[in-house]
Structures are given as structure tokens and as C-alpha cells.
């Protein structure tokens, strides 16, 4: 009887430590996600200034500028931290915004006056720096999510996780367009 109680005690202790480790991993994931949001916020604050400068010169890019504005609103809107789908949608929108902004930066090349505008040059330089920060935040987030998901998906962590309502978190994946191999013919 005493042996059974001792075994049960040890099992409870192990399950508790497992639970603690899962919660820690989830919190690191959330911390990393908030790190991404800080960087996304910086980018979102920068975008209106870039659009304001661009609008003066880019008459033919109105639809792109409108699309960027709408995506920016979507990215800055709140989302449920406990809902993996909401997190995924948020990250997908962030990546779409990144892709559209990349497109805008490429199109700037077609407007010599804009390309040589000092304010635009400074804004683009700052934007690139923010992108590097977002990339670093993404690396941290994906590392944290990888740790969490491994712990949640492997038995017996999967049982403890379902009891504690700890869910897997989505990875912050790069946009399909930026992952596609570059075809030199497109630029010739």
C-alpha cells in the first residue's frame, strides 16, 4: 500500500513538472509572439509615412497602395492569443503586408524622382532595418514554437497538454512568393 502511494506521489510530481514545463514553453512562445507584434507595430507606424511620400509620385499604383492600407489595418487589429487559427491569420496577414511592401519597394525603382527623394531613401532604409528586426523576431518565435509543439505532440506531454488546454502554435512562415525560386528570365 505504501509502495503504491509512493509510486502515485512520484507520478503526480512528474506530471506536475511536465505541466510546469509545458506552461513555461507556451509562455516563451507568447513572449516571442509579442516580440513579433512589437516589430509589426513599428512597421505599421512607418507605413503611413512611406505611403504619404509614395502617393505624391505613384499615380499608377493606387490599387497597391489601397491594398497595403487595408492589410495594415488587418495586422494592427487585435486577435485571440489562445486561438491558434487567429494567430495564424494574424501572421499570414503580416506576411502578405510584407510581400506587398516588397512589391512597392521594387516599383519605386520605376519612379526616378521618388527613388532620389531623400525622405523616401531614409524611410526605405528604416523600413529595411525594421524588416531585419521582424526577421529576428520570427526566428525567435519559430524556435519557441518548435520547442512547444514538440512537447505538446509527444506522449505523455500530449495528454497533459490536452488536460491543461495547451495547444500547438502555428509557425510564422515566409510568404510563398518569397520562398519561390528566383527565375532569372523574369528580370531579363
Amino acid at each position: 500500500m505504501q509502495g503504491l502511494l509512493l509510486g502515485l506521489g512520484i507520478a503526480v510530481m512528474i506530471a506536475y513538472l511536465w505541466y510546469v514545463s509545458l506552461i513555461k514553453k507556451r509562455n516563451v512562445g507568447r513572449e516571442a509572439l509579442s516580440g513579433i507584434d512589437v516589430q509589426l507595430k513599428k512597421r505599421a507606424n512607418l507605413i503611413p509615412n512611406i505611403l504619404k511620400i509614395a502617393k505624391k509620385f505613384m499615380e499608377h499604383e493606387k490599387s497597391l497602395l489601397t491594398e497595403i492600407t487595408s492589410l495594415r489595418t488587418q495586422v494592427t487589429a487585435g486577435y485571440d492569443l489562445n486561438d491558434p487559427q487567429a494567430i495564424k491569420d494574424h501572421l499570414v496577414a503580416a506576411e502578405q503586408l510584407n510581400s506587398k511592401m516588397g512589391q512597392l519597394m521594387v516599383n519605386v525603382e520605376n519612379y526616378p524622382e521618388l527613388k532620389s527623394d531623400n525622405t523616401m531613401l531614409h524611410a526605405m532604409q528604416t523600413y529595411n532595418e525594421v524588416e531585419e528586426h521582424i526577421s529576428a523576431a520570427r526566428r525567435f518565435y519559430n524556435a519557441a514554437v518548435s520547442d512547444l509543439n514538440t512537447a505538446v505532440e509527444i506522449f505523455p506531454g500530449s495528454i497533459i497538454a490536452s488536460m491543461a488546454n495547451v495547444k500547438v502554435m502555428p509557425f510564422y512562415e515566409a510568404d510563398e512568393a518569397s520562398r519561390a525560386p528566383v527565375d532569372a528570365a523574369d528580370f531579363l
Partner: protein
Amino acid sequence: MNIISFIFGAPIKAKRQPQRLQAASNELEQFKAHYAEHIEPLTRKFENHRIASLKALRQRIYTSFAMLLGLAFVVFLYSTRHYIDVPWLFFLLPALPLIWWCLRPIKRYKSDVKQQVFPKIFKYFGSDYIFSPTHHMSMSVLKRSKLLPHYDDAHFDDYVQGTHKGVEIVINELQLTKEVRRDKRTETETVFRGVMVQLSSHKGFKGHTVVVKNRGGLINFLSDSFKGLTRVKLEDPRFEKQFDVFSTDQIEARYLLTVGFMERLQALAAMFSGKIQCAFYEDKLLIMLASRDNRFELGSIFHGATFEYEFSQINREMKQLFAMIEVLKLDQDIGL
């Protein structure tokens, strides 16, 4: 000429070595122009100085040798008649001041080169560059980097200061020692010897990030922290094998430690032939390069006083530092 032929009386002649200036092809012309204008005019004077020093050294070696022989003869006579009974080693003590006296001309020559030639070499990188054998970095700033090992005494040597694209560069040689008790004796052990490089940054570093030598699997398994900083696990296994990274800011650490930066860091370590560690803190980057080499010193006294090798070597090392500034964009301030 080598030390043996020198002692046995090989003639000491002035040397004019062929041009050995080495620099990247795009800057070679400017490099040679600086040499011709600022350094070359000093070479004749220093070549005479070098020859005079070598002659003085040889003369003093002969004189010292004669004095020691005379002393040994007297001691031998007295000891055979049992007038004195002192260990033989005791009579070697006069050799120490004699060695000091012999080497004085060479030391004076080297010191003169450091004071007159090296500042002119460093002026190549900008008019604000200074070279000083006596200045040194602030120890409290170095301590705050969290890179220094435990030490009892610090000894600084050659100091260089200047700017590149508005980024302040400070280089200082440093030796750290600590007292160790061994078999009831206290010994002085060197815990670090090498070069400290400090680069200021126009960007603000919010966190404190250190890159230290890998501490080994077991220590990493048992401890995930280092002096109050938490571990940053990077995706590059090759880098992870060589270094451990700790930081107060996980995102900033990953932003700073790009592949390009790592490559530059390794290239710098190879150039200084040493092991490397670094810290980003208080808006500066501190690089700690452990190396047994004594930097900013002259080559062999038997080589001609052309200073071409020294100039080329210093230029290579400084270019690596400038490249680090560019990779990290320490010169840019974009208000983030």
C-alpha cells in the same frame, strides 16, 4: 644576419629591402603615397638608429662577457683556496643587471619607433587616430561587458583610438592575471592575454548580448544562463558548436548575430590569430581577442627599418574592423 653570426662579429650594414607594401589593389596607390610621404622619410634616420643600437648591443655583450669571465676567474681562485664559501649561483646575480644594460639600446630603439613611427602609420586611417603605449581603456566599462574572467591584476599595453564613419574605435592590449595557491606557494597565472577592441554604435542596443566560447555540452545542459543572461539558441549548428550566446533580449541577439557578422568575426579572429568573444552592451560592441602575440611591436631588430611589413599588417587588421562596422551598420542611426 642572425643572433649567432651577430655575436661572432658579422658586419652590421644598413639594409634597404625591396618594397614589401601590401594592400588591396584599389587602395595600393593611396597606401604607397602615405608611406612615401609620412613613413619613408623616417626610415633613414631609424636605420642609422638601428645600426647604432646593434653596434652598442654587441659592444656591451662583449664587455659584459669579459666582466663575467673576470669575475668567474676571481671567484674560482678564491674558492679553490677556500677563502669564500658561497654557492656558484650567487655569482651569476651580476649577470642580471648586465643583461638589462645590454638590451637598453634595443629597448630605446623600439620605444622610439613606437613613439615616432606608429602614430604616423595610424594617421593613414584618419587624422584623429592616436597611438599611445601608455593610455588605456576604462576597467569598469570592460568589467560591465560580463566577458572578463576572474582576475586580480590588469596590465594594459599599446592603445589605439580613432573613428571610422563616425564610429569610435578603441584598441588596447590587455593582460589579466590572478594569484593561485599551489603547494603552499602563491603563483601568478595569466587568465587572459590579448587585444580588446571597442566599437561605439550610433544604434542603441537595448539589451546585453554576449558571445562566449562554447562551454561544453554538460555545462550547457546543467546551466542555461551566464552571469544573469539567458541562453539564445541559434539555428546554425556550426556556430553553436563554437560559441554560446546569452542575452537579455532574444530578438536583438538574433538581429545582431547575422551570418555576415559571424563570418567577419571569424575572419577577425583568424587575422589576429586568436580566440574571440564579444559583447554588445551600452551602445557599444566589445570584442575580446585572446592572442599570445604582442601586437603593434616591431619585427626582428635584424631586419631593416623600413616599417613596410608593420604598415601592411596593421592596415589588414584595421580593414577587418572597418568591415565589421559596415556589416553591423554601426554607423547608421535611423532612430529605431
